[in-house]
């Protein structure tokens, strides 16, 4: 209690000094947008109250990791959609549409079609078998130590790369909006996120996510509505105008630009589709609902909200081509977009709704980043505390109090790492960064999780070697690829030519898992296979599932 009051006072101070910086910064760059600042402050104060409320209800490990298991299917659907409709996808996909038209839709579709797969194959089994993290499921009948370590490392890699994308988006957004220094902005986001997660756990993180999802959907709906209204609700009229003003002309109506060859196209498709089923912060959300029935409902609502949102971003991107790229107010002296292409949706907000709506959308985009980084960090912290500390290091014999404490310490450390990486990766395109996180999720977490639920023959040896190879390959290929090897490390030519490694790393992960499982003749392997039947009955019926009523 005292801690929380101290926290609030502390935050008010931070708030005041941030506000002071904002005014100084803005004086240099652009006029102070009081609407944006007050809306943002309102959001922060509101969410801190939620965090305070949640902190009083967060006592056990189940409260901290899974919001007590009391979230409804509808609420969880909104929260999942919130996790997924990150700033990277809102700003990044509208920027892709803005820059190359149709190509943005390819990304959107890839992001969406992972959801039906998760529903048909993963969601309910995950809910029936797991407790707090997907590693609970992956290691259900295998050896705890190696499998949990592998899953935790996979989770942390995905979390860190995804965090970079979010932090970069946050820094640029605040820089543009408030005229704040990029580094200060990134630090502010990191700090607020640490507060939400350490004090409010999953309950606060979920409600911050729900509120933000509603705000984002409303804001995006308004923007798309205003754009379409301008063209009497005719897509054709919108496209005609966009083709007329865009430098690539009619080419924006067909696939082009960023996917240059067939292998890249398939590789990106695989990463997006199966990556979703391997994202730790998304998988974790299935443990916040009471049973498999609610888990299924949450995917249906989430798919609906996300699909609707992607249709909106498509309209928003085209709206920005027409209304933003033609308006000198939003352009820098050499004709580029102020703040870069990632700001196209933000500029469009001003174009269709003036300063007040710009303030609203900026506050929403900022809220989005805060909510998503909180969810990510909680997933990363759980991997460390629940998987590594409680089950690997303490072999399942730790007490809840210590486990939660480790989780909170990890949150602080992850927050600091996220801030440093956010600063290091300032110049990267954030949509590609998300693509990389998906490649790792699809090649490490997904194969092990999927095979553990569906294939009797999976053994610890197979899962460990296959999953590690998937992780290793995807990371190495990314490091040797054009983005890290050339853009960041400054070499002239990439060793691996493509930025989409998934097709190689996923295939290798599945093949190696299969091969090293079928050739595993140990006694352990026989026992692991024999445990499959019971696991299967539980995954189908939910008997014995965490928090189930069917005793």
């Amino acid at each position, binding site marked *: 209690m005292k801690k929380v009051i101290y926290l609030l006072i502390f935050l008010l101070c931070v708030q005041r000094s941030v506000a002071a910086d904002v005014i100084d910064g803005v004086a240099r760059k652009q006029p102070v947008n009081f609407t944006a600042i007050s809306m943002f402050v309102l959001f922060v104060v509101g969410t801190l109250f939620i965090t305070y409320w949640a902190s009083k209800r967060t006592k056990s490990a189940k409260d901290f990791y899974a919001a007590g298991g009391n979230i409804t299917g509808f609420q969880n659907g909104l929260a999942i959609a919130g996790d997924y409709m990150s700033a990277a996808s809102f700003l990044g996909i509208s920027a892709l549409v803005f820059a190359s038209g149709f190509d943005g839709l390819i990304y959107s579709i890839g992001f969406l079609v992972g959801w039906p797969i998760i529903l048909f194959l993963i969601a309910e089994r995950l809910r029936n078998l797991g407790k707090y993290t997907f590693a609970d499921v992956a290691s259900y009948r295998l050896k705890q130590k190696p499998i949990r370590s592998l899953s935790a490392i996979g989770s942390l890699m995905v979390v860190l790369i995804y965090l970079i994308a979010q932090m970069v988006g946050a820094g640029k957004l605040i820089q543009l909006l408030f005229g704040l220094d990029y580094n200060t902005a990134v630090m502010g986001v990191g700090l607020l996120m640490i507060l939400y997660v350490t004090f409010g756990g999953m309950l606060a993180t979920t409600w911050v996510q729900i509120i933000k999802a509603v705000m984002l959907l409303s804001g995006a709906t308004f923007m798309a509505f205003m754009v379409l209204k301008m063209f009497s609700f005719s897509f054709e009229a919108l496209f005609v105008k966009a083709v007329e003003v865009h430098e690539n002309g009619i080419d924006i109506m067909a696939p082009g630009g960023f996917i240059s060859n067939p292998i890249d196209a398939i590789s990106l498709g695989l990463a997006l589709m199966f990556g979703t089923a391997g994202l730790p912060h998304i998988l974790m959300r299935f443990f916040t609902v009471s049973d498999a029935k609610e888990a299924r*409902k949450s995917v249906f609502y989430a798919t609906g909200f996300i699909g609707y949102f992607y249709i909106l971003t498509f309209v928003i991107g085209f709206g920005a081509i027409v209304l933003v790229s033609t308006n000198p107010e939003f352009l820098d002296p050499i004709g580029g977009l102020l703040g870069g292409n990632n700001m196209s949706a933000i500029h469009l907000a001003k174009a269709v709704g003036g300063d007040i709506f710009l303030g609203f959308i900026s506050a929403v985009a900022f809220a989005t980043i805060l909510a998503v980084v909180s969810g990510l960090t909680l997933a990363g912290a759980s991997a460390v505390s629940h998987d590594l500390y409680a089950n690997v290091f303490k072999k399942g014999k730790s007490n809840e109090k210590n486990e939660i404490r480790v989780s909170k310490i990890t949150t602080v450390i992850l927050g600091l790492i996220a801030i440093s990486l956010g600063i290091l990766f300032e110049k990267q395109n954030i949509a590609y960064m998300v693509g990389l996180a998906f490649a790792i999720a699809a090649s490490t977490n997904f194969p092990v999780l999927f095979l553990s639920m569906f294939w009797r023959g999976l053994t610890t040896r197979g899962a460990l070697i296959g999953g590690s190879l998937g992780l290793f390959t995807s990371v190495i290929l990314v490091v040797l690829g054009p983005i890290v090897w050339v853009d960041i490390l400054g070499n002239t030519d990439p060793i691996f030519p493509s930025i989409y490694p998934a097709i190689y790393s996923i295939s290798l992960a599945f093949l190696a898992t299969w091969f090293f499982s079928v050739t595993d003749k140990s006694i352990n392997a026989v026992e692991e296979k024999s445990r499959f039947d019971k696991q299967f009955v539980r995954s189908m019926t939910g008997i014995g599932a965490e928090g189930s009523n069917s005793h």
Partner: protein
Amino acid sequence: MLISDRYSSIQKNPKFQKLVKRKNTFSWFLTAIILIVYFAFILIIAFYPKFLGIPVAEGMVTTIGIPMGLFIIIFSIILTGVYVRRVNGEFDKLTREIIEESLK
């Protein structure tokens, strides 16, 4: 009754075998549909991107790719709705019966 005994008794229940068969057929059928639709789209992008650039009608700017893309999004939503409706209704009823029988 021990929980592991319940698992074995359920596994022998013909109703459970029926549930598994029906549910698996249903989930894998829907999975196959979404995979086919999506990878058809991706393969068109990979090997015949010009197809998606054909106007939907003579003299129009809107290309075939646009309605096709929107269709995949809406189709995905509908498919999840179909799954949830059937599994939360028909299959869950069967699951409850199996669970109750395992308690006898």
